[in-house]
């Protein structure tokens, strides 16, 4: 058994259809919502009206053939509606054929918008500053930036033709963007290699002369290819990936060492305090802006003291919290990244407990206040959307400036301090302050 036909009303046609339906006897589906389900003949009239509106448009270029193709099914539907013997199924069939034709025409308009947006993006990219091998892809993009223009001007152009040429342009945009992003990440990789070189002879596992020399060779090759206007994307990417993979190998050892050094319980409240006996009395939202950020591909940060309050972060890039890394790095960076900010904490209402509350860090986090370790959130990849709180009662003094460092670790997809961070002040309610463990009410957030 099978369905014979389908007819629909577009959202744009709903208002008019509803007006028409007001004059109809409500169907069995009528309720205080009005008739929920369509009247086939009234809807067919609306389809005709929608088609007629499109036929009346002044139209040149791509879409014209689809506009002209509306005439035969319009005529067929008009004849069917005029035929007193036609049943709903026949009306529905004819209307469906017309709806498909209308939809095809509408898709040409949507496709035209997609093509024009691609051209605008390509033109903006072609006008941007580019160096080295990125220029190759910029030139290629500039050469094709107007590619869809001719086909968009063609009355007989088909949807497939416009789709194909737009896809080609978008591929060029993708190549250029990839080259640009690759180029911007190289400086960071070379800087990492140079910092590693400074640790030769030290105590870092896996950082010996031989390793660092190999890294220097790769970094040099990468810089060389980057400057080569004829270098191909895949070739540059391969060297970059090789360098990055070696950092990852070193980083895995340093990561294990780091975690062993800092790993300790990270309570949300001071020992001996019953959180259910507290209520939130004040809150300070840490600013989203004003943070410094640095990737830590080889996990050198802790060894280099990036967590220390007095560490010089002047050469770090700017970063933001309450947003994923991609929003300011331009990529879903996988690895460790450090945030630093000096923040004046305002005076807060009288309290016994201060908690630094993170709504979400993708995936893990380690936190220092003025160089003092405040705690961690480290439950693996499942922690990406899990709020957590660290007790900072003894580390933060309202009314003073504090330097806050967050090391975030991401093992896949998006990463970073992507949700708000708040300093929460808690106190025992005044009426049971003498018996803090008696109250059943927790101060913890929006949870039952």
């Amino acid at each position, binding site marked *: 058994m099978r*369905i014979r036909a389908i007819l629909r009303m577009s959202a744009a046609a709903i208002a008019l259809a509803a007006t028409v339906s007001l004059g109809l006897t409500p169907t069995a589906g009528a309720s205080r919502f009005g008739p929920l389900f369509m009247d086939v003949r009234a809807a067919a009239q609306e389809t005709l009206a929608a088609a007629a509106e499109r036929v009346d448009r002044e139209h040149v270029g791509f879409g014209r053939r689809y506009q002209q193709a509306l005439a035969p099914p319009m005529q067929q539907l008009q004849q069917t509606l005029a035929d007193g013997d036609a049943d709903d199924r026949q009306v529905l069939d004819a209307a469906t054929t017309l709806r498909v034709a209308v939809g095809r025409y509408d898709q040409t308009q949507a496709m035209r918008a997609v093509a024009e947006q691609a051209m605008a993006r390509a033109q903006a990219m072609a006008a941007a500053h580019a160096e080295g091998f990125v220029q190759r892809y910029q030139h290629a993009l500039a050469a094709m930036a107007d590619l869809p223009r001719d086909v968009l001007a063609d009355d007989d152009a088909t949807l497939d033709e416009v789709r194909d040429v737009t896809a080609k342009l978008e591929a060029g945009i993708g190549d250029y963007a990839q080259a640009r992003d690759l180029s911007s990440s190289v400086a960071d990789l070379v800087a990492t290699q140079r910092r590693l070189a400074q640790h030769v002879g030290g105590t870092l596992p896996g950082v010996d002369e031989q390793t660092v020399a190999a890294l220097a060779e790769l970094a040099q090759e990468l810089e060389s290819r980057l400057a080569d206007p004829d270098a191909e994307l895949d070739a540059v990417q391969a060297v970059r990936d090789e360098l990055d993979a070696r950092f990852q190998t070193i980083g895995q050892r340093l990561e294990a060492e780091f975690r062993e050094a800092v790993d300790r319980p990270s309570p949300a409240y001071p020992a001996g305090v019953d959180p259910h006996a507290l209520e939130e009395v004040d809150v300070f939202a840490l600013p989203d802006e004003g943070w410094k950020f640095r990737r830590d591909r080889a996990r050198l940060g802790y060894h280099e003291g990036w967590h220390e309050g007095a560490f010089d972060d002047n050469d770090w890039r700017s970063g933001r919290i309450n947003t994923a890394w991609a929003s300011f790095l331009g990529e879903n960076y996988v690895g460790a990244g450090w945030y630093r900010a000096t923040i004046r904490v305002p005076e807060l209402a009288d309290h016994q407990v201060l908690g630094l509350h993170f709504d979400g860090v993708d995936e893990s986090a380690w936190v220092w206040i003025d160089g003092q370790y405040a705690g961690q959130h480290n439950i693996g990849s499942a922690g990406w959307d899990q709020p957590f709180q660290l007790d900072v009662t003894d580390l933060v003094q309202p009314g003073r400036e504090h330097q806050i460092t967050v090391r975030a670790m991401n093992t896949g997809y998006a990463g970073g301090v992507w949700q708000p961070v708040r300093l929460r002040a808690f106190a025992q309610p005044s009426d049971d302050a003498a018996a803090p463990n008696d109250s059943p009410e927790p101060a913890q957030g929006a949870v039952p």
Partner: protein
Amino acid sequence: MNRMTAGPIISTVLAVLSLSAASAAADTVQRLEPSTEPIHVRVLFESDPAHEAVVAWTTTAEGADHRVHVDTEPREGELDAYARNLPSIHSQPYTLRDDEADAGMAAWTHNVLLADLEPATRYYLTVASDGQRSREYYFITAPDDDRDIELLLVGDSRVGATRTSPDNNRRRVNALMRDLLEDRPNIVAMGHGADYTNRAHWAQLYWWLKDHAEMTTTQDGRLLPIIPARGNHDLDVGFEEMFWWPDRENDYYYATQLSAQVAFITLNTEISRGGDQRDWLEAQLAELRPRSRWLIGQWHRPAWPSVRAVSSGAAQREAWVPLFERYGLDLGYEAHDHSLKRTYPIYQGDIDPQRGVLYIGDGGGGVPQRQPDPSRWFLEVTDRHHHAHILRFTDDRLEGAALNHDGEIVDQFTLIHDRRNVADDAELVDVVD
């Protein structure tokens, strides 16, 4: 927009605002007191809703005696007056994360299987845990004859990424469904195309269950039975605890007989679409198609996505769509992409009004809406609305409407049945992206 519905819009909004305000005052931040007071009372349908249902509820203390008192006549909560009282056959604590346990949360789910029910019958019930009782509710079993029926469909009623507090968008869609339920006795159930919460953790499930219980239940106590699918945000064990069913044969894929001539297949996109599930699907389609005037399905990840890359639907298109087309599925309800969509009827990778399968949905039960791509060849309707669908099945038509959370109709469609058997001459072909 259709403005015929100004009355219900206003009443819905006012109801939502007043309930939201009450909830915010009472529930936003407080840990629940340990109590055996029943909350989150709900009804679950599975394969045979004319004769079976699970009644489930929550308590925040373990308790010892949990029962459903049930009758076909209202008993106004007089427990001894009900014809049957049945003990919970499955009570267990909800699994908690450490931080949830540390915050003092605790909850138990209780489940009673009602079997040997009469079709198309009102069942009045009061649940009681250690003497604490709920109000009296009722639900209506599915018919086993060929009368006209209706089905609500919704998907992605999860809220944003980490919010656990009451969510107005979800509550407004729930209120819309309740308003429909108030007036329409033929509504059998709500199919849910999955993604109820961001993660199936108790602190989030609590709010989904609360929003469902508070906002979809009618003033006179009619419960909206749930037919759940499983989505990518429902992988934690809490989902299984929330939608427990005795001795499930498969991993949340099953077929529901909504009436004598309407069958509803629920699939699971979070496991292999091939293998056992595909074999099961083909067997079900082969069995159900010849004896069902209307054969529809629901699953989470779309075969025909409206927002994500078209390639993201490849697994469903490769494993399932050829079967849908071979056996003539009438309609598939999809979610996951967070928009409103309706495809053209699709057959063998092209539009085919005669033989095509219609796909609707894409998830608007509360999750923030995304911008769909109207340039895709297979999409006829694309929009952004928090919404639910209502389907009506008659002897010759399947009629559908999508309503946004203001009660406005934002899409309508009709299929007309012609009783031609295409399963005999259809070819099983692969659809290539």
